[in-house]
């Protein structure tokens, strides 16, 4: 009888996996430095290899990884251009014979953690890079995206998860898949389902009790107003501009729709000052803005004699126009794109709507420096291979440095 396949996330044997699950989080919190006192060296190395390989490229067979292993690990040293310009390096060899009397206190740079870089060749794989760029919630999911043809490399479809990215390669994942992978899952508890059922029943009952009655007739109130005076207009526009300033100052957040609506209403109010405008011609915000601008330009072109101060300076200065324009643009873009992903309630979407990040994502959210990611288009560029630098190794690994060292020693094949 074949052996039962071990659980992927087991509480009996805690393994850290490359995913954003709570089991991985729990395993990370339970990790300890390796036991070096009671185990033989071989046992230590074996345990280190087993636990690190459960995280790094567990989807690969051991032989495939062994062939990729390299014993030379890349590193960089940050140089200071001022130092290089000032000294030619001979000062490091200067001893007492050169007149150096006292030994200066030397700055020792922090240690370069080479031993955490054992698995750096795996970071070059396309599936791992997609996971590291936060486009998928696990490496296996990233792998599935690639195999299903949702990933482009340099604009061409790439279906091999093992593709070795070259420095400068741009990879891009379908945004809807990224939203699905990183969004909260669409589950409803039995309680929530029960509540909605009860509510629906109550609503049906209500409907049965009092049948629909015709909506009350509302007469359109005709505003009988004269053409506004320039002073009034100016005041109104200034208020509008102030509002724009506020909008520009703060970042538009989850409540952006409300703000946008109120802003649009104020624009409408400004437009309603002119009688000539009818709602059809100025339905979109863009046309509204154009309308406002042309009207104001006309008005300022024909200066009224009774108010010379307003006529002297145009109602909207150039600067304010630019501000208004950029605020309009920003708001339009954000609301359009956000509402495209977050319709009011979309049962067809594979994630919980409105979109929110998946549980425990924030504990795993980091982007290593060898990637440059643009989240808006779900694309990233693999800049260079990961390197070690003083005090920092760029390969994200949850293990203690001694574990890394033991694993590296395992693959040196001198056991």
């Amino acid at each position, binding site marked *: 009888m074949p052996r039962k396949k071990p659980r992927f996330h087991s509480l009996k044997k805690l393994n850290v996996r490359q995913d954003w699950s709570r089991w991985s989080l729990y395993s*990370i919190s339970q990790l300890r430095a390796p036991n070096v006192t009671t185990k033989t060296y071989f046992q230590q190395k074996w345990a280190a290899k087993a636990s690190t390989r459960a995280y790094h490229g567990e989807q690969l067979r051991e032989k495939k990884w062994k062939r990729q292993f390299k014993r030379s690990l890349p590193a960089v040293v940050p140089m200071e251009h001022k130092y290089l310009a000032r000294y030619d390096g001979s000062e490091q060899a200067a001893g007492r014979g050169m007149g150096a009397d006292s030994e200066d206190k030397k700055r020792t740079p922090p240690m370069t953690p080479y031993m955490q870089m054992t698995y750096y060749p795996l970071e070059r794989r396309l599936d791992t890079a997609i996971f590291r760029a936060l486009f998928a919630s696990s490496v296996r999911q990233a792998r599935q995206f690639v195999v299903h043809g949702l990933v482009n490399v340099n604009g061409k479809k790439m279906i091999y998860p093992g593709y070795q990215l070259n420095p400068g390669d741009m990879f891009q994942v379908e*945004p809807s898949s990224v939203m699905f992978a990183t969004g909260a899952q669409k589950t409803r508890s039995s309680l929530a389902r029960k509540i909605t059922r009860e509510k629906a029943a109550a609503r049906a009952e209500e409907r049965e009790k009092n049948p629909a009655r015709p909506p009350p007739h509302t007469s359109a109130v005709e505003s009988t107003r004269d053409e506004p005076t320039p002073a009034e207009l100016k005041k109104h526009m200034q208020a509008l501009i102030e509002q724009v300033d506020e909008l520009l*100052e703060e970042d538009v*957040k989850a409540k952006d729709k409300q703000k946008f609506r109120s802003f649009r209403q104020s624009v409408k109010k400004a437009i309603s000052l002119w009688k000539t405008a009818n709602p059809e011609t100025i339905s979109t915000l863009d046309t509204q803005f154009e309308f406002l601008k042309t009207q104001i330009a006309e008005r300022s072109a024909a200066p009224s004699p009774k108010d010379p101060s307003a006529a002297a300076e145009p109602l909207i200065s150039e600067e304010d126009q630019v501000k208004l324009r950029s605020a309009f643009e920003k708001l339009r873009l954000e609301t359009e794109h956000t509402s495209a*992903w977050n319709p009011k309630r979309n049962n067809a979407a594979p994630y919980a709507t409105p979109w929110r990040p998946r549980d425990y994502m*924030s504990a795993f959210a980091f982007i*290593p420096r060898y990637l440059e990611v643009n*989240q808006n288009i779900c694309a990233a*560029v693999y800049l260079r291979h990961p390197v070690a630098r003083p005090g920092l190794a760029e390969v994200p690994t949850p293990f203690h440095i001694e574990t890394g060292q033991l694993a590296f020693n395992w693959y040196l094949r001198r056991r």
Partner: protein
Amino acid sequence: MPPRLRSCNLSPSTASSPISSNASVRPQCISQPARSLREFSQSPCPQTTLRRRRFYEWMNGPGRQLKEPLPSSTNYLGAYDRYGNLVRAGPGWSREKAKQAAGGEDQPAMKVEEVKADTDADGEATKVPEGQEDLDALEKAIREGEAEEKEAKTPPKDEEHDSKLPPETAEDLRPFPLNQYFRSQPVLSEDLREAIYQRVKRDGATVSLASVEFGVSNERVGAVVRLKQMEKEWVAQGKHLAIPYSKAVLDMLPTTPYVDSIKPANKGKRPITHEPINDLIVHPATRQQLFVPVSESRHFTRVDAGKAFDNNLQPADARIPHPELVQAERELAQGLSFEERRRLAEERLAKEQAEKRRIEEKKQEEIRAQKVVPQRRWDFVFKDVSVDAVGRDGRSHKGVGWRYGVPHDDRKKSVVKIPTKVEA
């Protein structure tokens, strides 16, 4: 996970009275009874093992803090102690209050002056060096800048600063607490990306110039421009950007803010350096230790040291990504006037561009030399090949065409068919 102590954030009042400090050991962790059932199940699980009980205890205790992101802050495992308390938070801070404040368009960032005062009290606040060498110092500067930015966005309010969250320390940015050699490093903020794009595309700055100005490495500048360009194309095409995702992710990550020097509020502030730009790659020849006896009277420089390791190894001045900075510094040290230096720099730039043009022309020449026959689906391209490309034994993979005794491997079973590169 090594336990983290919350010594620095204990306020003097709590530190003085031992009783109250004992009471405040676990203020943030909501002790909930271990849920007897999962969301989907109605019946209590009778045989919960010890391991499973511990797992759910941890998930409902310390792990609960990590379930949802902290508003406008990072939320890593390394920022919490073993009871699930946020180490850097003051005694008055609570998650609910922070969330409410964030909902009411207020952001829980402590004022920078206060933070600086705090760190001064600790005695670890040293003057941030301008140099590229110290990564810790660089990132600390970034974090302070970020806090400042957040503070600038919030309207000034008279609140007790206990309820605000100070910026992260290096320890708070560890997603893996056991690995002290890895931390979440800041990414470029949206504003900074836009600024880099505008500088290169609109102002026509070279990549290396933009790199020096923004403190961002050469490759990253190129990548940012490429990605931004693509983003603009998407907007023009009417494709939908993943804005909710982008906002959520950038809110969870540490970011490098953009200091716009044109704004009057930022007068006198230097731009924040994102990363060290002059990284020298460790050459494999220098990995081993070398003992070279040299007479003390000899002027043994970097160039000589490079020669000692490898005959082709150039000194660091030539191998760093920005050798022009070293050159400029040297000219400054020589005492040349501003006009002189400018003239020299322009000369160098012209020379560099001429070289680039020459290479480009050569490439174009090669392309023009090819004969192209357009077809319905594919174009046939004829290139000149040499018979000698097969090498001495006639088996080199560079050879063209079918050769007797040299099989094509590209359809064989055991040969890897994954492409090694995709042309951009």
